[in-house]
């Protein structure tokens, strides 16, 4: 017995939901609109129709060298994600397919490293980075973000791998498949969706990380988080440019995020809510 809502009800819910959704989305929408205004327009009061100039985007690039922090963000978030995957895939694999009595404890311990507040180790990390010449370097930051996100990556992969039926492995072994063939032809195809989801979520997390990226860089390796934070000092008059820079900084991740809603729930709750 399917319940069917009356059309009137449906229209009422639609109106309520759209109004609330637009209020929540408004700050983002207004940033995008402002990015197409001139600077005087930007501070002239609410207006939802910009004059449609692209000048801000050009200015942000030519005056503030936008491309460099953008590339830093791409390199650091992609690099740290790939590194974390390389280290985590074998670990998650072995925990999912040949678990021992201690597997659970190891997983919980890995999660517990995530509980350590970043700021508590700011001093030693800062001093080590300074002594090793890693301050304001892409390599330093990439390694840092790899370590921070490694527990989440292991966990996510583990919850995905665990769903691959073990019987299929036994069947392929019965058929005489070698370990290598087993990995290439049986497991990899089944593991790819889980790995892709993990990749997506981790890029989002790394792109938006805003403690280490701001504190460990100055100019050369500064990704978009640090670049945008540097806009905080000049008051007014730069809003249109700030909006253009912000729009470009969030657009790629916003679009990726829209496609990864499910994975997000699963990854950030460590598989507790699916």
């Amino acid at each position, binding site marked *: 017995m399917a319940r069917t809502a009356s059309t009137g009800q449906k229209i009422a819910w639609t109106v309520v*939901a759209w109004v609330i959704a637009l209020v929540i989305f408004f700050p983002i929408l207004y940033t995008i609109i402002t990015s197409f205004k001139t600077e005087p327009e930007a501070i002239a009061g*609410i207006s939802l129709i910009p004059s449609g100039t692209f000048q801000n985007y050009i200015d942000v690039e030519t005056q503030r060298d936008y491309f460099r922090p953008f590339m830093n963000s791409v390199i650091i978030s992609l690099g740290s994600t790939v590194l974390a995957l390389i280290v985590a895939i074998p670990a998650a694999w*072995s925990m999912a397919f040949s678990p021992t009595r201690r597997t659970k404890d190891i997983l919980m311990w890995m999660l*517990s490293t995530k*509980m350590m507040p970043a700021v508590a*180790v700011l001093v030693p990390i800062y001093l080590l980075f300074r002594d090793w010449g890693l301050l304001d370097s892409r390599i330093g930051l990439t390694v840092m973000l790899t370590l921070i996100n*490694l527990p989440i990556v292991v966990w996510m992969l583990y919850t995905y791998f665990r769903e691959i039926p073990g019987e299929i492995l036994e069947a392929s072994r019965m058929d005489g498949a070698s370990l290598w063939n087993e990995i290439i032809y049986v497991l990899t195809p089944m593991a790819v969706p889980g790995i892709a989801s993990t990749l997506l979520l981790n890029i989002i997390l790394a792109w938006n990380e805003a403690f280490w990226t701001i504190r460990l860089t100055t100019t050369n390796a500064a990704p978009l*988080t640090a670049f945008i934070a540097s806009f905080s000092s000049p008051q007014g008059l730069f809003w249109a440019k700030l909006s253009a820079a912000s729009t470009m900084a969030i657009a790629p991740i916003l679009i990726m995020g829209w496609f990864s809603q499910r994975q997000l729930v699963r990854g950030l709750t460590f598989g507790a809510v699916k």
Partner: protein
Amino acid sequence: MATRQTRTLARIMMMPSVLLLLVWMIVPLAMTLWFSFQNYNLLNPANVSWAGLFNYQFFYTDPAFFQSIWNTLLIVGGVLFITIVGGIALALLLDQPMFGQGIVRILVISPFFVMPPVAALIWKNMIMHPGYGVLADLFKVFGATPIDWFAQFPLLSIIIIVAWQWLPFATLILLTSLQSLDGEQKEAAEMDGAGLVARFWHLTLPHMARAITVVILIQTIFLLSVYAEILVTTNGGPGYASTNLPFLIYRTALLGYDVGGASAGGVIAIVLANIVALFVMRAVGKNLDR
């Protein structure tokens, strides 16, 4: 069917992750602990000496310390309250039949993907600015005096911004949980004459209990270390009005060059986080035994 060979292989495969995390956990932690007992200032690095408990005493007697702990808890509590109540309401709303549900959902979850400095600067300049912000314009339309948010209500302003970022997360998880509620159960309750409120209270809410717990625990981890939002808006001020513990430690370390003091603060932050972690591990651990 694990042979000794595969077991050895499994151990080798786990080694890199375990070793990396072990080093990552132990080395900085040991250094923080060691520094917290030293007189060590970066402006005078040649003169390092044993300080005993002086750094802790110094941190403890600093009036900013208790205010920063209080602010930390206010941020966590305030944001949790807004996001849980708002998240439940939004999840219930998004579960209703409507046109363009997919787009509504995308609009609602979007703030979560906005990086913290961008979120904070948008709110600071375009929304809450007392002169040119959207809220100021709205206030003027209704003939009211615009509020200077960051001067008058610095902590509340930060709570609003952070809540805006985390509301989508709560909504998305609670909605996922809501949608796994059995439709037949709902119908049965309806046929038994249970009203809207009764159904929510006795069926929906208990069903979401686990998801709510997860949201509280996970958000708490992140909310304990809110940083960028404070840095680009109030910079901890006015005075210490919007300084939380992470921000106080940052101030001590990189603005005061006081390695010892900042490390003592770091140890305190770890203790605080561990009290919270205790609860997190228990809840997630239970799930693992499923």
